[in-house]
């Protein structure tokens, strides 16, 4: 199964420690990786179709990027060979600009029929995989709702868009959507693990799908309540701001 990591801080954070730990935990995912981050409000994405780990050696570029990236918001994705398959290995994270921000998107899961979705908005993501259609669907619905009511609130817009998405295209969703200031995570399967870490420059908050967390520290489990159709988690800076069931 693919894995996701988000790192959010109130300052430009260098993920020297946690990106390699994420790669280490994702050793079993051998078919590609991607890292997205922000510089002066613009998204930058570095990805590769090569395995993040090969013969006990971390991918050279992944190691170097971990040393030089600094950003308030960083998303990483490690692809799996079995589900979502080889074809999307060099695609995540995706980026689109809308509602006045550049956004990064990563997703794991299996969704039926979403590849039939055709956006009427531009730009379109030029890759034929479910995660791209999911991102376009969310973008389209959020833009439509916010244009009708500019003061609706981002979380309300995303929540309504996701409800529509899950009803029209049932499946397993676990996505992270982030602009330079806020991370909006949704999942309706698996779990999220969260850690608030103290860096010399300030606090950092990490969120991952890796079941055991990335280290031996006090990772907190975020799961679904019994009859919940999914859950949103909202992170701003290094703060766990809010959680809401779908």
């Amino acid at each position, binding site marked *: 199964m693919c894995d996701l990591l988000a790192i959010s801080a109130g*300052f430009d954070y260098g993920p020297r420690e946690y990106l390699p730990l994420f790669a280490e935990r994702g050793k079993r995912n051998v078919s590609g990786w991607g890292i997205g981050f922000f510089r002066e409000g613009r998204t930058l994405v570095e990805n590769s179709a090569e395995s993040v780990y090969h013969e006990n050696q971390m991918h050279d570029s992944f190691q170097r990027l971990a040393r030089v990236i600094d950003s308030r918001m960083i998303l990483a994705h490690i692809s799996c060979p079995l589900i979502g398959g080889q074809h999307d290995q060099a695609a995540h994270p995706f980026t689109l600009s809308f509602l006045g921000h550049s956004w990064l998107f990563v997703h794991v899961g299996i969704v039926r029929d979403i590849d039939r979705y055709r956006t009427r908005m531009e730009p379109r993501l030029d890759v034929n995989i479910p995660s791209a259609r999911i991102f376009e669907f969310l973008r389209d619905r959020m833009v439509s709702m916010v244009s009708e009511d*500019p003061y609706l609130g981002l979380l309300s817009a995303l929540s309504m868009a996701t409800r529509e998405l899950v009803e029209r295209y049932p499946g397993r969703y676990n996505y992270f959507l982030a602009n330079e*200031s806020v991370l909006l995570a949704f999942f309706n399967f698996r779990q999220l693990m969260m850690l608030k870490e103290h860096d010399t420059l*300030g606090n950092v908050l990490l969120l991952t799908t890796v079941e055991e967390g990335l280290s031996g520290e006090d990772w*907190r489990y975020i799961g679904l309540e019994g009859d919940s159709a999914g859950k949103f988690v909202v992170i701003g*800076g*290094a703060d*766990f701001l*809010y959680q809401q069931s779908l």
Partner: protein
Amino acid sequence: MCDLFAMSAAKRSEAARSLPVFGVRARKNMDGWGIGFFRNDRAHVEKSANRIYVPGHLHDSFQRLARVIRSPTIIAHVRLQTSGKKDECHAHPFVLSFLGTDWIFAHNGKSPAIESYRSRGERLEAGSDSARTFEYLRDYLLFYHRGDPMVYSFVDALKRSTSRLMKEYPGGYNYLLTNGSVLCAFTNHRHFMLLKDSRQLENALLLTTVAEGLSPEPWQVFKAEEGCGLLLLIVGGELLLKQVVTPLRG
């Protein structure tokens, strides 16, 4: 009644257009002013007990600060003294450090009951309802959010603390609370006016208590229902969520 101003943006920005308009439109408040902002994640406050406006002139320092302060979040307060002394120490905003970061707080309203609150934590020098309100919120945010962050997310903890405040110390509260990343705005009296994507002022999210807003653009009114409060959460220049807060029962 004091007036409040806030600007939230995705990156460090100036409020060089909107702050002077705010200063002029809030000029009926004659007992001091203050501006709070963030630099390298640390809170900074410049404040004064002087009048913000004398006929024909906005306070010289306020004008200059408005031109040069650059921060993702800026809040300002113009004071009409209803509690505490008229001096710089009682001017808003106030700063406290907790939950691993600096927080800036500004308030208007009338809540004399809270003046009797005695925090066991770090206390602000000012002897006013606003200073006690900030201490109270700090104390209960720590109690709820640090106590169990998985049960009480930051917003849930702030809602619960404010709900408790409304029950234990009934009064009129309008407050702004920010750590630079997140801006929380609460009102249970008066209103907030919000404007996004202004063409005349800054391209950020602007908020004020000034009834007519700060420009002839379509400002959106946010007002709580009778007996309730309204909490707005703003991050990176976007309104993220709106929550109704009712006084704690039981």
